């Protein structure tokens, strides 16, 4: 797996990533965060990959918008415990 997923960031930065991916940052915050991304390769990789990953999951959910799929995924979680 790529190295950038192993790197740890400050919890505040992690929160910024989730907010960035969830698209809930205000314009000013978004611009400032994107400035930070320009300077930090690992952080940028993580943020952009997470954003892309979320889009992929949304695509998957959209295509397989049936309860059977969700049940199967939830079942897989139950099997973990």
């Amino acid at each position, binding site marked *: *797996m*790529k190295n*950038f*997923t192993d790197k*740890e*960031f400050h*919890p505040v930065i*992690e*929160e910024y*990533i*989730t907010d960035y*991916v969830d698209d809930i940052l205000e314009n000013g915050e978004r611009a400032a965060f*994107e*400035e930070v991304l*320009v*300077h930090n390769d690992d952080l*940028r*990789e*993580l*943020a*952009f*990959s*997470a*954003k*892309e*990953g*979320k*889009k*992929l*999951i*949304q*695509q*998957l*959910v959209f*295509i*397989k918008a049936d309860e059977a*799929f*969700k049940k199967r*995924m*939830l079942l*897989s*979680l139950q099997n*973990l415990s």
Partner: protein
Amino acid sequence: MDAFKYAQVANYSDEDLMEYFQEGREPAFNELVQRYTDRLHNFLYRYTHNHQDCEDLVQETFLRVHKSKQSYERIAKFSTWMYTIALNLAKSMYKKKQRMYKVSIHKDETDPNDFEMMIEDKSILQDEELHQKLSVEKLEKALMNLAPEFREVVVYRDLQELKYDEIAEITGVAMGTVKSRINRGRAQLQAMIESYVDMGTSF
């Protein structure tokens, strides 16, 4: 600054090269293009997910650097200055594309009750084209192959649409950890899918 020496061009820093270029040394610019073409492409691909767009944006970025060379000041790192230009161009392209997906239904000038409206043109492919080319099975497989601690939170968040505090409560881990795991889970999923895709194809 010392006189420009063509034989030493590979040893100059980015900032030195930019200053030499400002003095009219074109080989200095060529060296910067050589150094940054691939890096810029990779940077922009993360933003656009479209190789053709990346090529256009890389070209446009270097064109802007060339035209705006005198606006660069050494107080900033050259790479920062250039990436900022690239990011702004990518944002502009994104906005332009968003507009392209809508077509205008012009109003009938002779009809005072008619008005112009915009409708989405489904025949124009969007960047999501990449995703549509991926098989659902591979996506599902990638999700199942995520590390359990990542899959758990990603499923709760992106499939069940639970709030972060709800996920923290269910899983019994701190909310910061939940967010960190979701970030990594999503990123790892993307990395797995990326490995399935032939990056040489034009999307």
